[in-house]
Each structure stands twice: as structure tokens, then as C-alpha cells.
């Protein structure tokens, strides 16, 4: 299957790119726009926040985003209870007129690890309300299975803590999750550099979501391109089927016909 027909399918919608990127932490809007372009991403995350009533001169994010080109994935970042996350999703749907949400319910400010109990509660309500729920979760196969059973359209286990750049800390768990659920598995959080993204894809993940790994790089636009290539390379390598690892050497050149 050529790369062009290898689509990511989420809730029946097809995407060419398996890289999803955030829109936070950029120096300015032109840098963000150029990085989004270089990443090749088609799904971009956004946050939902109060409008600043007293200072209306600030530019708005949506002034800089071509909505024909990108699918917005509003997040519930900063929510610590199911109720707040549900409220945020309802607002996001009204603001964006799309059912896609990246559901995150955080456990505490220090680790930003998910509160899976609240996450499951919120996911159950949101799926019933017709949302396409993409939950950010621990790399826990049982929680991922529960999320799938509730009707989530994908599961998004973390590779490492949000913004940490530590990479895929537990590839074995990610592999077990891949063996456990049928919905797409998207590694969300922890990617620090291109090889991290490639590793996630080589494991068989269906996509990778990142923000800080690109926006926090010294040259975010170049890193966006690196991530674009890494996700594609990792996917191709996964589909190509890697050789098994073994301890001993195996010669690449014929061992017969040597000169004497």
C-alpha cells in the first residue's frame, strides 16, 4: 500500500497525516503558522479560554488558521474534574461547530498526569452527547480498554509527562495497548525529538500528538519538518516490517566465492 493511500481513520474521517500538533507556546502567530505548515498536520489542537473583555485589541488565534485546511481538536487542558471537562467540551462544540474533542482531565498540577477516574466519567457523558472523544490517558492498557468500551474514537496514551520531552518511556505498555484496543492509538505527550516520534510509529501507533517538542525547539519550524518526516518514516518502517533483533552477526555479503 503506497503512503498516499495509508490513511489515518478516526470516527470514519480520513486524514493523510498521522502527526497532530498543538498551537501553544509559539513565539508569535507567523512562527506558529509556518510550523503548522512544515509539520504537514491536518489536525491541530486548541484550548478553550475566557475572552479578555477589557482588552479587545488582541488578535485571535482563528484569524491565523485556515479552517479549510485544518481540523480543530479543542482540548480540555487545565480541567481537573469531569464536570469542568464536560463543560469545556460543550463550549468548544458551540464555538467550533465540530464534535471532535481532546479530553484531558488532570490529576495534579505537578505531574499533569491524567485522573483516570474522572476521565472515564467525562468520557461516558460526552460519548452519550455525541462527541467524538479522543482521550489523553495514562499508558495503561486496562484504562485504554475501558475508554474504548465507552465509545471513545481513539485512545491517546502519554509517552512521558506533558512537556517533558522524555520520549516513549514505556514502549512495552504502548505495545500492549496496541494489542488490546481496536481504535487508533495516538501517543500524546512526551515526544522530545524526531526519534521519539519515529519510535512511537515503529511500535505500530496510528499517530502522534505533540506541542512542546516542536514549539519549544530552538527552531520550531525546522523541528516541525523533522517531526513530519519522523512520523512518516516510522510508519513506513512499521509497515515494511523490521528484521528481528538477534545477538549474533549475520553477514550481508556472500560467504562463498571469496578469493584465495
Amino acid at each position, binding site marked *: 500500500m503506497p503512503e498516499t493511500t495509508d490513511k489515518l481513520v478516526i470516527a470514519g474521517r480520513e486524514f493523510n497525516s498521522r502527526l497532530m500538533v498543538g498551537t501553544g507556546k*509559539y513565539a508569535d502567530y507567523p512562527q506558529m503558522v509556518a510550523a503548522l505548515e512544515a509539520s504537514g498536520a491536518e489536525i491541530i*489542537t486548541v*484550548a478553550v479560554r475566557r475572552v479578555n*473583555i477589557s482588552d479587545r485589541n488582541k488578535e*485571535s*488565534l482563528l484569524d491565523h488558521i485556515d479552517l479549510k485546511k485544518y481540523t480543530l481538536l479543542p482540548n480540555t487542558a487545565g480541567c481537573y474534574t469531569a464536570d469542568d471537562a464536560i463543560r469545556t467540551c460543550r*463550549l468548544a462544540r458551540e*464555538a467550533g461547530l465540530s464534535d471532535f474533542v481532546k479530553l484531558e482531565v488532570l490529576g495534579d498540577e505537578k505531574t499533569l498526569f491524567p485522573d483516570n477516574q474522572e476521565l472515564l466519567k467525562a468520557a461516558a457523558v460526552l460519548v452519550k452527547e455525541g462527541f467524538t472523544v479522543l482521550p489523553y490517558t495514562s499508558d495503561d492498557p486496562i484504562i485504554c480498554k475501558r475508554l474504548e468500551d465507552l465509545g471513545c474514537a481513539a485512545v491517546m496514551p502519554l509517552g512521558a509527562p506533558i512537556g517533558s520531552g522524555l520520549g516513549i518511556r514505556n514502549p512495552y505498555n504502548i505495545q500492549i495497548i496496541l494489542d488490546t484496543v481496536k481504535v487508533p492509538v495516538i501517543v500524546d505527550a512526551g515526544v522530545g525529538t524526531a526519534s521519539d516520534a519515529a519510535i512511537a510509529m515503529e511500535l505500530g501507533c496510528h499517530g502522534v500528538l505533540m*506541542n512542546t517538542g516542536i514549539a519549544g525547539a530552538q527552531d520550531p519550524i525546522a523541528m516541525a519538518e523533522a517531526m513530519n518526516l519522523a512520523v512518516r518514516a516510522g510508519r513506513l518502517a512499521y509497515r515494511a516490517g523490521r528484521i528481528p533483533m538477534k545477538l549474533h552477526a549475520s553477514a550481508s555479503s556472500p560467504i562463498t566465492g571469496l578469493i584465495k
Partner: protein
Amino acid sequence: MNITVNGEAAAIEQLSVQNYLESLGIDPRRVAVELNREILPKADYPGTLLKDGDALEIVQFVGGG
């Protein structure tokens, strides 16, 4: 009359939600509004008059991961 907007007190004349957003220079297509913790559909902005004591949340999309 007095209302609460995004957690802050505001004194306004009686207006529809649509007119109130316009008075703030907000494009109604770019935001979502909660009135007393219930989502207010965009189609209801022109016909919904604000009342004394109402609490509004007006949100928009910003950069985020």
C-alpha cells in the same frame, strides 16, 4: 443592571446577548457563550435579553496542546 461576565462584575443597560457581544467588539461567530452555566446556542443570541444577576461566560479558542 448588573451582570457577571467571565467572573467580573459589569454594569450594563438591558441588551440582547448579540448586542452585548457587539458592544464589546466580539465577533459572535468566534466565541461560545454560557448563560447561567447553560450553553446558549448561537441562534439564540439575538433573542436572549440579559437580566439583572445573569452570569455569562464568553470563551474562545486560544493556542494550546
